[in-house]
């Protein structure tokens, strides 16, 4: 019995029959089906029968679900109709707990702030980091035991992404695990494990701000550097940010670079175990890795959705959306849309046009760290294949209790060396 089947919330969809229940009652926002890995058929039914779907009652209030690839593209590329303000999460925020950051801003402010942070994850900067990233990947992999069960999430996925973040922020390396905690706390549902309450979460955010204020003060008085804190401290559009805005942007970059890649690292191992023929393809031809990385990112879709808010009355897929309505783009569903993606329900590491997936979003808010994520995954798999014949999943994985962060909290594996 998994945690999920113990999910007693009256809103939980766990165990319900996706094909016979009243369609208007389908609610993708409740975390239960995500943790229980039961979300796929619910999304499939919506794509087939009601692709722009209104859920009138849910724990987070009424909202629209957009489930088809092309409709998602349309929403994502129409910021003048579908705003990213006040928040891109499905839960409405309250002022005292709201962190301003450019992911939840519209142009022109979004563009100004993003331009400052973007160069740190631009390919030209990444090229300088590649050697260091590979070294750190090798160090992690070389410490792992052979033929012994361990948790891949903790030892590899979290460790690697945390080290990367510390590198990008030039954060004190020995304190790097704080970054992971702040990231987890920022997106946690109070009471679901990481933090007990909103107050506790806020205490974590305040600690984060305090530490990063120290780094800011240190770097604002030094020569401009290539790390993110220095870029923000010296950037014209960001140097006069309020403390809350600074914290908001720091948290955005921590969460953006942490949960997402972490879960694609775990998700790739799962997908290859569930599709042994694909693992064989990889063993036979390692030049497939860059293409496989895109397919892993599609398959995992580490952020299941982004939310927008309609600014005006509008029509989408024959439905009337009213100004003020919550509109949720389910990337996890669009990435399974067989009308656009050939054999979308199959994990194919050599698929044609693998880069054309929704996991990074499209338009002005397209994932800024996409090239860093791809690079980390590419290097990781290159080095895994140098060392191990198989990363074998040897027990039941546990998944995150969230409809936003789609990923794993635990993945027991055993490594088998090359013969």
């Amino acid at each position: 019995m998994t945690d999920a089947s113990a999910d007693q919330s009256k809103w939980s969809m766990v165990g319900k029959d996706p094909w016979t229940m009243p369609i208007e009652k389908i609610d993708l926002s409740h975390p239960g089906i995500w943790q229980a890995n039961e979300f796929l058929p619910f999304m499939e039914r919506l794509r087939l029968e009601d692709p722009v779907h209104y859920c009138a009652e849910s724990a987070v209030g009424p909202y629209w679900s957009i489930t088809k690839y092309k409709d998602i593209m349309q929403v994502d590329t129409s910021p003048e109709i579908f705003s990213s303000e006040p928040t891109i999460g499905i839960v409405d925020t309250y002022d005292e707990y709201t962190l301003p950051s450019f992911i939840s801003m519209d142009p022109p402010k979004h563009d100004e702030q993003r331009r400052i942070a973007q160069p740190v994850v631009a390919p030209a900067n990444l090229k300088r980091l590649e050697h260091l990233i590979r070294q750190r990947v090798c160090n992690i992999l070389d410490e792992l035991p052979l033929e012994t069960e361990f948790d891949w999430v903790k030892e590899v996925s979290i460790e690697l992404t945390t080290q990367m973040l510390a590198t990008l922020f030039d954060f004190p390396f020995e304190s790097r695990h704080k970054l992971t905690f702040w990231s987890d706390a920022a997106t946690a549902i109070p009471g679901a494990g990481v933090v007990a309450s909103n107050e506790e979460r806020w205490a974590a955010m305040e600690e984060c701000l305090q530490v990063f204020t120290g780094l800011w003060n240190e770097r604002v008085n030094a020569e401009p550097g290539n790390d993110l804190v220095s870029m923000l401290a010296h950037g014209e559009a960001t140097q006069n940010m309020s403390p809350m805005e600074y914290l908001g942007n720091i948290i955005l970059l921590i969460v953006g670079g942490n949960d997402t890649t972490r879960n694609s690292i775990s998700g790739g191992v799962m997908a290859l175990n569930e599709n042994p023929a694909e693992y064989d393809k990889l063993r036979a031809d390692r030049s497939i890795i860059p293409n496989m990385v895109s397919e892993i990112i599609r398959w995992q879709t580490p952020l299941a959705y982004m939310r927008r808010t309609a600014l005006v009355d509008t029509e989408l897929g024959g439905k009337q959306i009213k100004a003020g309505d919550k509109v949720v783009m389910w990337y996890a569903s669009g990435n399974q849309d067989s009308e656009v993606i050939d054999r979308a329900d199959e994990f194919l590491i050599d698929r044609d046009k693998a880069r054309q997936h929704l996991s990074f979003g499209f338009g002005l808010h397209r994932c800024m760290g996409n090239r860093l994520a791809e690079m980390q995954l590419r290097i990781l798999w290159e080095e895994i294949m140098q060392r191990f014949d198989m990363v074998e999943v040897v027990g039941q994985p546990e998944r995150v209790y969230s409809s936003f962060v789609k990923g794993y909290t635990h993945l027991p594996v055993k490594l088998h060396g090359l013969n």
Partner: protein
Amino acid sequence: MAGLHAAERSSLLLRRTSWYRSALEIKGPRFMVKIKFIEHSGQEHDVETNPGASVMIAAVSNGVPGIDADCGGACSCATCHVYVDQEWLEKTGEINPTEEAMLSLSTDRKDNSRLSCQIQVTEDLDGLVVTMPEFQF
């Protein structure tokens, strides 16, 4: 013709290379436009294409490396970024607000930057020369 191509462009999202090619071929023989793509390394690729499609499609359907076109031509990813040779810049037409917004977020933006999915191939562009940035981002 313009209407057909506009419709074609909007449905272009995410069709495959082979599809692009067949879509170009079924219109039969006509005036072919020559385009030179120059990679950041200096490697040149000369392609011939029918008027009507975009410069991005001309590259992708001819296997020119250095253009990712992740969004399939919807002006929403900036991974088909090119630098247009100065003498051709005017002929490639105006930059629309969406393209301007996407380009303005690029770290490699120059004054001759364009998104190649937004340049429609016309007979006036015969001989066009574009260079790719080192990275698409």
